[in-house]
């Protein structure tokens, strides 16, 4: 620039911080535009008595950081919600949260909603049959070790299984319920909300049943039972309003609370997940 460059003394004073402010300011201004002088200060950073940090160690850390895949959008959402990084990873790693899975579930629900909005009675029955069992199926798949190989080593570690299962359940419900609610708005009448309590009830039943059987088997059993009940009701009365009756809704509420209590009482059994399959 000006023909002026740093000599060894200046470099040393600068690296040691024993120069004056004004000299330092001149040096720093010069460094930004002079490659050769920058290289000399840079070289000083590797001289043992002048070095301020372990540059090789920092390089290793930097490389490790960039080689770790960036967290998914869902994981970042969980972290934003206040979950510590390692727990967010544990929750988000479930195969139930892969976008392919979620897209499939959303597509099935959208189809059922469409049928209900267009096809009246039959369509409504289809919606009532499908919507309540979707959340419990997704919850079950979110912690079933058969679907989620990543879970196996995690459960060997002393991480509390109960906490993991509950966190994933809450994550599923937080993801699924708004979607289904929005879809339900497309359906005429109050039927849209009739499935909410059964959905929560079935999730609780699956949680409770998974202290005996594998979560996926529990969810399939619950879903089959529900489909049979819906089919019987549809064949006999023909009106989906049955579901809206207070008695039925209270029944589902009781089912939800009772199952959840059973789940909490038997939660120790969750630790013995090993022999599932």
């Amino acid at each position, binding site marked *: 620039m000006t023909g002026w460059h740093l000599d060894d003394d200046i470099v040393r004073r600068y690296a040691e911080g024993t120069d004056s402010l004004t000299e330092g300011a001149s040096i720093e201004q010069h460094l930004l535009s002079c490659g050769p002088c920058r290289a000399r200060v840079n070289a000083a*950073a590797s001289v043992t008595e002048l070095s301020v940090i372990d540059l090789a160690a920092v390089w290793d850390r930097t490389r490790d950081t960039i080689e770790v895949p960036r967290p998914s959008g869902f994981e970042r959402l969980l972290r934003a919600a206040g979950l510590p990084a390692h727990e967010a990873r544990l929750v988000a790693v479930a195969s139930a949260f892969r976008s392919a899975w979620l897209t499939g579930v959303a597509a099935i629900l959208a189809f059922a909603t469409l049928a209900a909005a267009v096809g009246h009675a039959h369509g409504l029955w289809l919606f009532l049959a499908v919507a309540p069992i979707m959340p419990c199926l997704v919850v079950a798949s979110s912690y079933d070790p058969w679907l989620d190989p990543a879970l196996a080593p995690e459960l060997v570690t002393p991480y509390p299984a109960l906490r993991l299962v509950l966190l994933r359940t809450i994550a599923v419900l937080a993801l699924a319920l708004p979607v289904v609610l929005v879809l339900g708005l497309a359906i005429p009448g109050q039927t849209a909300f009739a499935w909410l309590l059964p959905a929560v009830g079935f999730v609780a039943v699956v949680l409770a049943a998974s202290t005996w059987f594998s979560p996926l088997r529990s969810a399939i059993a619950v879903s089959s039972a529900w489909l049979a009940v819906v089919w019987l009701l549809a064949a006999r009365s023909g009106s989906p309003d049955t579901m809206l009756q207070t008695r039925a809704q209270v029944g589902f509420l009781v089912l939800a609370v009772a199952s959840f209590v059973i789940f909490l009482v038997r939660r120790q059994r969750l630790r013995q997940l090993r022999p599932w399959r």
Partner: protein
Amino acid sequence: MDSGVDDETLLFAVAERDMGAFRVLYDRHAGWLAIRLARRCNDPDLVADAIQDTFVAVWQRPQGFRGDGDIAAWLWGIAIRRLVSRLRTRSSIAVFEHAGTAPAAEDQVLLSVEYGDIGQALARLSPEMRAVIQAVVLDGLSAREAARLLNVPVSSVKTRLYRAKARLRAVLAEEPS
């Protein structure tokens, strides 16, 4: 260490996910950036974290460099801000340390080349004012960032900056070059 390739070519290769080029860029710049950061923060761990954050940011967004000016200046802009944000997330106090000695005779010559009388005028400021001038004027930080770096309220940065400028103006006016 220097392979003769210029920084822009390296950065272009980094955008193409070339780890070798990234390593060369790191070797070429991490050292002087660390020395410069260490002059503003006496905690080596924080400096190391800031250097790591800087190069992670470069790897993730090399296109942040728009091709204007020097890559060194761009890197410094990232590094000083990463240091400031590290200070924000930690409770440890980093002290702005500087040997506030008056420049030696031979430095005066050097300074008059770069800054003229401003060098002497700066030397007559109080250490607090000099620190603010350095952070805001020379490092290009905002008042908020400077406040974080110097661990003082934003309002103090603003008043000190105002007073420092007034002092400099007065000193320069009474000693016409």
